[in-house]
């Protein structure tokens, strides 16, 4: 199979095949920890790191691993990296680890990671596989952060609450009161707010795609309704 170019890999991971918005994978952590930007960013970075490491390793092992045991091997690789990353976070970002809690070990079960190992990393060389891991992780992180920002502003009226947990003490003053004196909108902070927010993001993404398609069709002189037939 021909390996796609770097630009294609990036565009797929970030937009066309976004783990959160298109494949709808990894929704459990996506919905659970997106109550604030900092939590979202923390989980996004941990997931990206896992994807980068697992994609690279799976790609390097792709000629050695027999097809029958490939899935157990991928799971082993992913579980190893997640455990290691969890221990490192516990050691060096203890407070953030405390907040993200169970969702760090649960990265193992994020199907987006196993999906990339099987669909991409096991069929392509290490370089593109690593890039694919980064792009998929960045796409997932972006969705998490956008959802987290929306929910934090609506739910608490702030942004970057607890930023020092990721970025160190110098970020302690980063918290912005976007809506000062705001009491908070409970729905946005609770799980239903996550579902509604994700729904809006999906709708937004689809609307942008639809508009681009219409433009392309218009430029090519094709009828705007041609998409339905395709």
């Amino acid at each position, binding site marked *: 199979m021909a390996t796609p170019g770097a630009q294609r890999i990036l565009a797929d991971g970030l937009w066309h095949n976004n783990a959160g918005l298109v494949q709808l994978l990894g929704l459990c952590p996506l919905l659970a920890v997106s109550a604030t930007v900092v939590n979202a960013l923390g989980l996004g970075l941990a997931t990206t790191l896992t994807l980068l490491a697992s994609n690279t390793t799976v790609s390097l*092992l792709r000629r050695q691993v*027999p097809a*029958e045991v490939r899935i157990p091997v991928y799971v082993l690789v992913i579980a190893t990296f997640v455990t*290691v990353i969890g221990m490192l976070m*516990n*050691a060096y970002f*203890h407070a953030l680890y405390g907040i993200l809690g169970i969702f760090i070990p649960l990265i193992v079960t994020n199907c987006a990671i196993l999906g990339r190992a099987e669909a991409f990393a096991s069929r392509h060389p290490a370089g593109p596989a690593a890039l694919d891991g980064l792009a998929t992780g960045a796409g997932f992180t972006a969705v998490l952060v956008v959802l987290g920002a929306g929910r934090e502003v609506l739910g608490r009226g702030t942004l970057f609450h607890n930023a020092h947990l990721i970025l160190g003490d110098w970020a302690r003053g980063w918290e912005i009161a976007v809506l000062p004196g705001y009491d908070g909108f*409970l729905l946005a902070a609770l799980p239903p707010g996550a579902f509604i927010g994700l729904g809006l993001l999906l709708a937004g993404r689809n609307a942008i795609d639809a508009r681009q398609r219409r433009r392309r069709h218009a430029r090519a002189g094709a009828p705007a309704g041609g998409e339905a037939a395709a």
Partner: protein
Amino acid sequence: MTEGTARGTVIAATVLTACALVGAALVALTHRETAPAIAANRESAVRERLTAVLPPGPFDRSPAQAPLQVRAPAALGSRDALPVYRAVRDGKVIAVVFTAVAPDGYGGAIRLLAGVQRDGGITGVRVIAHQETPGLGDAIEADRSDWIRQFHGRRLGAPPAEAWRVAADGGAFDAITGATITSRAVTGAVRRALVYFRAHRERLLTTDG
């Protein structure tokens, strides 16, 4: 054919075993490298929390060190042994900090720390883990409201034991608006810890537990 399949199986098993061994080695290595930092983090997190519920220091040693392990399911709300930390000054225990569990919170068990000085007066209470409703029950966190601070300086007798309830149950403590169940659970857990302290005062206040 059979021979080929057997060979394939052996190869597959070998690769899988090798991957498992390498993975286990990586995890073990990381564990060895991070274990001291993780233990230090835990201790400093405990120490930080204890500072909030203890009278100001200095103490002879960190109160986070060598806690008593107390198993008292009825009084402290857990079937497991829970740590009771002691603040020692000049060889005397001046206060103890209970880890108490309120099993009857709205969203499940609420874990808290309750500091009690020699005379039975509360030096502070803090919630360390809970799953109460954000925006309502989470007002038991000291960062979100002053509610938890109303226990400070109270003791059994002031108010009397039967008034260690929320106002809705005829007691002396305000409940958080919209979170009566949560408030009731925390108040009850603090009361039970105080009763336990009164009953086991001598044992808890000796330094060499």
